């Protein structure tokens, strides 16, 4: 079976624009509902708690812990062939939401559930429509 290769760059849409704009100025942003206070990721068209549309993008601390992770040892997509093994992790931000990202700057064998991590931002890139963004990644605190 041949696989049709699809791109691996995020696509910035209206619901995620505030998140990606934050990454260019070194801010990890979470969407907050000004009506009920709930925080959510990824961004959406309304607050998934109360359906209000009064949403703002707000910088958070960038600190969190590894809620779960995997050490990827087989590249299922050619773009990651020279990266294996790498850590794909779900980071539970101190402010609540879970963000999927990579844990870097540590031996893959040392990553643990509960490990405190802090965000850093990769070099800016462009999505398919030339909108700039920078991928947030995490390293041990």
């Amino acid at each position, binding site marked *: *079976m*041949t*696989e*049709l*290769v*699809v791109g*691996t*760059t*995020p*696509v*910035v*849409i209206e*619901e*995620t624009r505030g998140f990606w704009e934050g990454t260019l100025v070194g801010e990890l942003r979470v969407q907050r509902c000004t009506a009920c206070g709930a925080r959510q*990721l*990824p961004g959406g068209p309304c607050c998934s708690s109360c359906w209000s549309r009064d949403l703002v993008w707000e910088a958070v601390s960038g600190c969190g812990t590894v*809620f*779960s*992770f*995997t*050490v*990827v*040892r*087989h590249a*299922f*997509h050619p*773009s*990651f062939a020279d*990266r294996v093994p*790498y850590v*794909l*992790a*779900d980071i*539970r931000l101190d402010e609540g*939401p*879970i963000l*999927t*990202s*990579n844990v870097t700057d540590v031996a893959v064998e040392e990553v643990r*559930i509960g490990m405190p991590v802090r965000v850093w931002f990769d070099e800016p890139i462009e999505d398919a429509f030339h909108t700039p963004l920078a*991928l947030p*990644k995490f390293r041990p605190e």
Partner: protein
Amino acid sequence: MSTSGMIAIAGVGTTPFGKLPGRSAWSLQAEAVRNAVADAGLTKDDVDGLFTEPQFSEPLLLHGHVLGRMLGLKTDYLSTISIGGATAITLVQQAAMAISAGLCEVAVCVYGENAKTGLPMLFGLAQMGRGQADDIAYGMAGGPVMEARSAMRYKHEYAVTDEMFGAVAVSFRHHATMNPAAMYRDPLTMEQYLASRMVAEPLRVLDCTIGASDGGVAIVVTSAERARDLAKPPVLVAGMGAGHNLDGLKDPAHYTHFAGARSSQRAYAMAGIGPQDVDVAQFYDCFTSTVLITVEDYGFCKKGEAGPFALDGNLKVGGRLPTNTSGGMLSEANMTGWNHLAEGVRQIRGECGARQVPGAEVCVVSGHGGFQAAHATLVLTKGGR
């Protein structure tokens, strides 16, 4: 109001599974339908309902309309849906509902795929929609990578060992050795399992469903009354349930608790049974970890106890909960849950030869998809004639 016992599965049809070069998905779907309708002792002209899951390898709108035209059907009711691994059971549920609502009388549900030898398969994430698929940027490509984080959290919370995952793979392969239709029929030992390549920790290659298979499965659904006079013993749809964890892995609870708990409770209640009444299970086995969590969600074990339960051999024919008696998607074929339905029907009809569970009268079948999002359940029981 419930349809319990009013609807039956009257026929099941399968094609060979494996590597079938030169066969299109359409041809496999057509063969499965033909076999299922013949199995029921019906003809093409009896079919007035069609329920389809489109092939991944050739996505298109109106899949069921295209297939129905190819088969020369004159259907009154038709539905095409795609909700991952919960699709097969959901389509049978929809067929049952359409029949009980009087919208059709004889429905065929079908899936067929030539993923092994056919057209390019798109990466699943790419189909999830712009802006929602950004996790691929971090390397979240491929089913095992997506599922591994649930498996890792489950191991962490309940002290599950590698051998407990391995027991699932070994048990299902044991069943496949007795299934001439299975793609992988060589016996599998725990040592071989533990030596298999790690792909996305904690998942080894033998924790994962067979990646792609060519093949097709079709199921004929009709009223219990009509099924009574057909060619094969009717298998009653005694209970149906569904549940959806729409937050997926954005909700911390969903790593270790699937919507299967809600789905199975509803199905048990409709059937008037509990887990203690189940003789045989066919559980969606995209990964070994998925099976263990499902065994718990369905009330066969307390949370965290499915691993030791599997290690004690309870998932094997002869154990307390014979599960995936065909080998499932880990060893028989990756028919995205459709082969579980076929096997469930055949177990209740007593057609499974060496792997038959003696006296099997109640079978529970699960469908599970979308990485913890979608779940559906059927309870199948032996019907009278």
